[in-house]
């Protein structure tokens, strides 16, 4: 319980830090991008001006601490301002459309790559003498060095452009009626290639971590004891080796997840997949600062929550953590 509360406290605090970064970033930037932006835009409607003011604290009479309090209050009330590029749509509305796509794409591909990568890592350590194991490790280490977006481009070029197996971009067939069977099929069809990009690019990270953990665990005395006891190999591999080796993997979820989410965002940009990543790309190009800010907040919050969940999973997997002994 103490562990749970500590992790919950950490979650809330990191969320708070993310919020604060979000507040101070535009205010600390040199060269005042907001002023430049204001100069460029003519006839700005008043709502947009307010939104700009909220985002940058422009010609605000309030002192910084008060602005900060107002910002926190607005955030809690879900008031994030209005998008520049999709004026007069509130940025929260823009997010509402984009989030399901990202959650589905990234959620599914991250879980898949975790399962596949971890499984392959277990096997690669268990049968580390074999050629196949070294080959797998080698191939995925190579793939891991690819930039995500470039790997996405390569897949598009060969599988979508040359072989025409998949659509080149987007998330669904525009001509299909939303919600119809044909539409859902098109969603699947459009999702495979970006999901494949994220999956294949990130498997290597899980695989290598799990393999190294497994190799370390396999050298422990309790594995030797399990062998000596004459336990079936499958049981040793799963309950004695993998069960212990996966703990650092789940704990290390934080680091890996931050990378994979980053990679996933760029993958969306390459595939024009209408999720949060692509939205961020458009926001950056349109200098839509309010949208950028909420996207950053959303991504940070999701990664933090995912980490919190991973911490809770560790609590169930590791009795030592449950007792606060570790």
């Amino acid at each position, binding site marked *: 319980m103490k562990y749970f509360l500590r992790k919950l406290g950490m979650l809330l605090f990191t969320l708070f830090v993310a919020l604060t970064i979000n507040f101070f970033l535009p205010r600390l930037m040199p060269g005042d991008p907001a002023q430049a932006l204001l100069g460029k835009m003519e006839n700005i409607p008043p709502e947009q001006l307010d939104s700009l003011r909220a985002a940058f604290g422009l010609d605000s009479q309030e002192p910084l601490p008060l602005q900060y309090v107002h910002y926190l209050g607005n955030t809690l009330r879900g008031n994030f301002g209005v998008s520049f590029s999709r004026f007069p749509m509130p940025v929260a509305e823009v997010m509402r459309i984009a989030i399901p796509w990202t959650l589905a794409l990234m959620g599914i591909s991250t879980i898949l790559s975790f399962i596949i990568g971890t499984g392959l890592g277990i096997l690669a350590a268990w049968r580390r003498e074999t050629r196949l194991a070294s080959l797998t490790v080698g191939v995925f280490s190579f793939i891991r060095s690819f930039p995500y977006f470039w790997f996405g481009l390569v897949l598009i070029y060969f599988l979508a452009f040359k072989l025409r197996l998949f659509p080149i971009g987007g998330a669904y067939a525009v001509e299909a009626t939303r919600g119809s069977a044909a539409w859902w099929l098109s969603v699947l069809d459009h999702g495979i290639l970006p999901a494949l990009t994220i999956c294949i690019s990130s498997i290597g990270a899980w695989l290598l971590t799990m393999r190294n953990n497994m190799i370390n665990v396999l*050298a*422990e*005395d*309790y594995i*030797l*004891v*399990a*062998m*000596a*006891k*004459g*336990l*079936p190999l499958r*049981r040793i591999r799963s*309950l*004695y080796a993998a*069960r*212990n080796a996966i*703990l650092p993997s789940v704990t290390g979820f934080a680091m890996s997840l931050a990378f994979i989410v980053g990679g996933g965002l760029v993958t969306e940009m390459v595939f024009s997949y209408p999720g949060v990543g692509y939205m961020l790309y458009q926001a950056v190009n349109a200098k839509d600062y309010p949208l950028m800010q909420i996207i950053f907040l959303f991504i940070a919050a999701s990664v933090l929550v995912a980490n919190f969940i991973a911490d809770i999973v560790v609590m169930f*997997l*590791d*009795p*030592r953590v449950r*007792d606060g*002994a*570790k």
Partner: protein
Amino acid sequence: MDGNTMLELIDLRAGYDTVRGFVRAVDGVNLRLKSGEFLGIAGESGCGKSTLAYAIMGLLRDQARVESGAILFKGRDLVRASAEEWKQLRWTGMAMVFQSAMNALNPVLSVGEQLVDAIHAHRKVSEAEARAMAVEMLALVDINGDRLKSYPHQLSGGMRQRVMIAMALILKPDLLVMDEPTTALDVVVQRSIIEKIAELREKLGFSVIFITHDLSLLVEISDTLAVMYAGKVCEYGPARGLFDGPLHPYSRGLMNSFPSLTGPITRMGGIEGRTPELLALPPGCRFAPRCPEAVERCREAEPALLPAGADRSCACWLHGETR
């Protein structure tokens, strides 16, 4: 060999491959263990006693292997046993207790699960029966049955080691190999574990090979003692005799040394210098460079382990006159 012999090692050589060559950690060891006997093996770290224990259990791993010789367990040569034979023999015929129970117990499984899966690996019994066996065994080592649900980290160091002993004895093996089972424990707990082992041996009648660097402890509890130095047995005989008068200068040194208070970095009080590197052994007697009594002959030729009085043997040129 007579029917009373439990284990016999014949000219056993074992070691491990390194980049610099094969390191022979056990170099031609001959030992015999009678049924019900308590054999103590003493020596500093690096003398090959642990390699010997793992070789007997068939648990040498990584680069380690038996090079030559025989391990006869109840007349059957284990060196040539298949993996399947080993699997059936281990834990039912011979079991092992490791130095650190913390490392030997799986941290994420409860004590009960780990005891029960040893039973299930060898006996076709129901879950309830297996649990009953586990509770019974824990009772023998003075641990309450509701500890089955406990995880290793929830137990004290002494309790963990007693759980390990219960786990080793759960299938009533004939031979128990113990590799420094008390080194990681404090003196009081160490004492209680030793007494527990003696009591259980009375009750269950298994043989014991007890390995430690603490010779003074061994002379109290063993029937027979073997002192190892640099891969070889340098003195062998009844514990009583060795206690009254160690023959080998190394044994004398070990007897005089005291365990250090800082734990694993034990400085041998009685003996100057360090154990030789196995890849760069000195000519002649392996102990000669550190031996306070060494004469010229000791540096020229290696003494063999030869009988030295009733039931005893010793590998030292200085005992030439007794031969």
